[in-house]
């Protein structure tokens, strides 16, 4: 009876640790740290269907052949559960080795997988992965182990469900739903960070404001659905034209904005010109027709334009864009006159 109470207490703290975790790796860590107090096992695995990730929390003396067997077995069971067959070579395995046993009980280097308990992880009747307890000993697990593992699996799935929901709320908060670019709110947060970095360290920071020329005509002629499609295509052109560290956001309507950290006027002009040419040379399919479009771009830069705040930097890029429009469109303009900015 005392043993049952002890186990229930351990189970309770395991569940508590899992429920406090907020991402897959953390969930596996929390479970793995607590499981040795509940079960006698050689390896504990969590297979995550999305991205084919397998986290293994295992006794440090487990030989690689044993690890391979566990991976193969989990993939096999997952396939039996009606999911598509998994190519074991495509599974990314992350192994966390821990000392789970005293030295005299170390695993034989020739040990093979002798017993396992594997359960699917489900969210709203969909299998999202599976968890597995594995041992080099035959008949290592009993009905009580299975009951405990199922409760742990249930809690893990519930935590993952919260994590998924949180991720989707986060996505809604930072991405533009049409173009999948960052939205204006995220842009402002990001610019705050980048501007502070630049202002304090006196490193270069450029902003590029991009506007599609005569976009209203596309909407008026072909309708808003086709117009939206053009916006998405231009968004993807912008994404492919910038560097990894740059931020591309939809600023509103047919306007986009780029944050180019550590880019001076020369580099930002080069990137802007690349975008201008790319859009000019890309034929856009709208309805049955194929049309050509152009964009105008305005650049502002710190420290060249002596902006003192991020708002000033935005204003300068906007004024430069206005110049590009006034100058005949389909061109890149660099902000010229600091006097234009109200301070």
């Amino acid at each position: 009876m005392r043993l049952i109470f002890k186990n229930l207490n351990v189970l309770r703290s395991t569940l508590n640790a899992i429920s406090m975790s907020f991402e897959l790796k953390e969930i596996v860590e929390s479970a793995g740290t607590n499981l040795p107090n509940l079960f006698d096992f050689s390896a504990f695995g969590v297979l995550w269907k999305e991205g084919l990730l397998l986290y293994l929390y295992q006794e440090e003396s487990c030989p690689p052949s044993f690890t391979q067997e566990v991976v193969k077995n989990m993939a096999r069971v997952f396939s039996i559960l009606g999911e598509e067959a998994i190519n074991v070579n495509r599974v990314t395995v992350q192994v966390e080795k821990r000392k789970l046993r005293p030295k005299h009980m170390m695993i034989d280097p020739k040990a093979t997988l002798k017993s396992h308990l594997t359960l699917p992880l489900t969210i709203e009747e969909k299998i999202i992965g599976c968890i597995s307890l594995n041992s080099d000993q035959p008949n290592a697990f009993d009905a009580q182990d299975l009951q405990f593992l199922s409760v742990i699996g249930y809690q893990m799935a519930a935590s993952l469900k919260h994590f998924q929901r949180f991720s989707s709320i986060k996505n809604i908060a930072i991405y533009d739903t049409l173009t999948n670019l960052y939205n204006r709110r995220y842009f402002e947060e990001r610019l705050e960070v980048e501007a502070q970095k630049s202002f304090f360290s006196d490193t270069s920071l450029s902003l590029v404001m991009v506007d599609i020329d005569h976009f209203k005509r596309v909407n008026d002629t072909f309708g808003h659905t086709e117009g939206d499609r053009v916006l998405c295509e231009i968004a993807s052109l912008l994404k492919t034209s910038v560097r990894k560290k740059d931020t591309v956001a939809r600023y509103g309507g047919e306007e986009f904005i780029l944050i180019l950290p550590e880019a001076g006027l020369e580099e930002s002009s080069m990137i802007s010109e690349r975008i201008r040419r790319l859009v000019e040379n890309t034929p856009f399919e709208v309805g049955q027709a194929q049309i050509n479009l152009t964009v105008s771009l305005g650049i502002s830069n710190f420290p060249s334009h002596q902006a003192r705040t991020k708002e000033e930097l935005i204003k300068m890029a906007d004024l430069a864009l206005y110049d590009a429009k006034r100058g005949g469109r389909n061109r890149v303009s660099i902000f010229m006159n600091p006097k234009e900015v109200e301070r």
Partner: protein
Amino acid sequence: MPSGVKGDKGGKWSSDLVLDLYSNLLIEIWEVVSALIGEAILALLFNLSVQTLGEKYPFLISLKVSEEGISFEEMREDCRNIAPIEIHRGFQSLINHLSHLFSALAEGVINKELFPKVFPKVREAERIISQK
């Protein structure tokens, strides 16, 4: 848990008898296994098995399984015109498939708990079928 095991007012048919037998058996399986792995996973395994066998035994598709349990209401109607032997074969395949899934997941742990309760009833079903 909705069991749906009710007698036919107009007298029992053999099909009804076989269905009664297997519905009791499935409820027993549900009770034993849900205590081990939880209702959500068990419902998933049942539905997976029904999906796999549904093409060969279409009457199994009317078996409704959720976290709340198994419901036979719809199936009872659908089975009226099906030969008892066919019902017996369908359920036997379902139980075999479930047993295969249990052993894939937990080796002998689930089946060890299940076999002593399930086997006598399967034999009883076979006896009823052979008497007909």
